[in-house]
């Protein structure tokens, strides 16, 4: 059962990844692309978790965890740039 | 697998080189990054491709070659140092010349 579900799941996630990527490319605005980038990060987490199940390996946990912990920082930086320009301000 | 991997490296490398040769700072930095992606993958490939065999000792019998991975890690760190240096130096140049042209003209 899993032998089918995992590939299907991977395929679905892959499709989601592609659709998100399409938004990234289409834009049209910069915030649109940033949303897509942010979502790609989350999609990647899901992909890695499923891939870990497929390999029956827990070695990928740290990767997914790190993406969850750090991924948003890039989004924050980019969005803050759109708002304020300078992302590290004096005060 | 090898062919696809090599193709990806090739395109990454080509894009990287093209950008490296740009006349402005930012594309050059982007180019450095792409080029280093290509090289990191290339180095990884030099240990041959292996799937699902991370070099973490468990009960397995086969592991991916850990050496290229260690090399890539070092290369990434050094690349980061160099990129940071380049970026700030480019800013310094921008502050002096008022242009982001790599030649200052």
């Amino acid at each position, binding site marked *: 059962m899993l032998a089918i579900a995992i590939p299907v799941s991977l395929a679905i996630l892959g499709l989601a990844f592609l659709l998100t990527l399409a938004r990234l490319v289409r834009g049209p605005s910069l915030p*649109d692309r940033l949303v897509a980038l942010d979502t790609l990060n989350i999609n990647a987490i899901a992909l890695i978790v499923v891939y870990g*199940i497929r390999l029956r390996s827990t070695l990928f946990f740290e990767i997914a965890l790190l993406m969850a912990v750090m991924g948003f920082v890039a989004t924050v930086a980019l969005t803050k740039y759109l708002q304020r320009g300078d992302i590290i301000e004096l005060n | 697998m090898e062919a696809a991997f090599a193709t990806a490296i090739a395109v990454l490398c080509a894009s990287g080189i093209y950008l490296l040769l740009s006349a402005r700072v930012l594309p050059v930095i982007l180019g450095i990054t792409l080029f280093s992606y290509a090289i990191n993958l290339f180095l990884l490939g030099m240990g041959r491709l292996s799937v699902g065999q991370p070099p973490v000792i468990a009960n397995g019998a086969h592991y991916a070659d850990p050496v290229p991975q260690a090399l890539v890690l070092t290369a990434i760190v050094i690349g980061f140092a160099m990129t940071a240096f380049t970026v700030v130096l480019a800013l310094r140049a921008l*502050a002096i010349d008022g242009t982001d042209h790599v030649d200052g003209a």
Partner: protein
Amino acid sequence: MSTVIEAIVCILLLVGSAFTLIGAIGLARLPDFFMRLHGPTKSTTLGVGGVVLASVLYFTVHNEYASLHELLIPAFLFLTAPISAHMLAKAGIQQRVKVSEATRGRPPVHDEPANPARAQAANPKSDA
């Protein structure tokens, strides 16, 4: 691994994937930025949530050992996703993204007045 558990894992996997896909579809086809911004939350919450639950269940049974650490992944996402969304929305507002005409109300804009501080620093030739 019992079939039941395997089935549950499968369902969780598929549900998670499906919601991720729905989020992506939303992102792809919703008409304006703010509406599209709703998409990722599905990927974040039920999408990753489902997949992670599948993982927890799978490894717990597979390794015969309560493997809960994957739960930290959605936990962190739940913490961080709202920041992302909030910041993205603010960025969208600041960038004056097009808002679907059907939208009721308009977001408030907080423009910086022509900033003397920024202009003052404009001295490109000086390097002292």
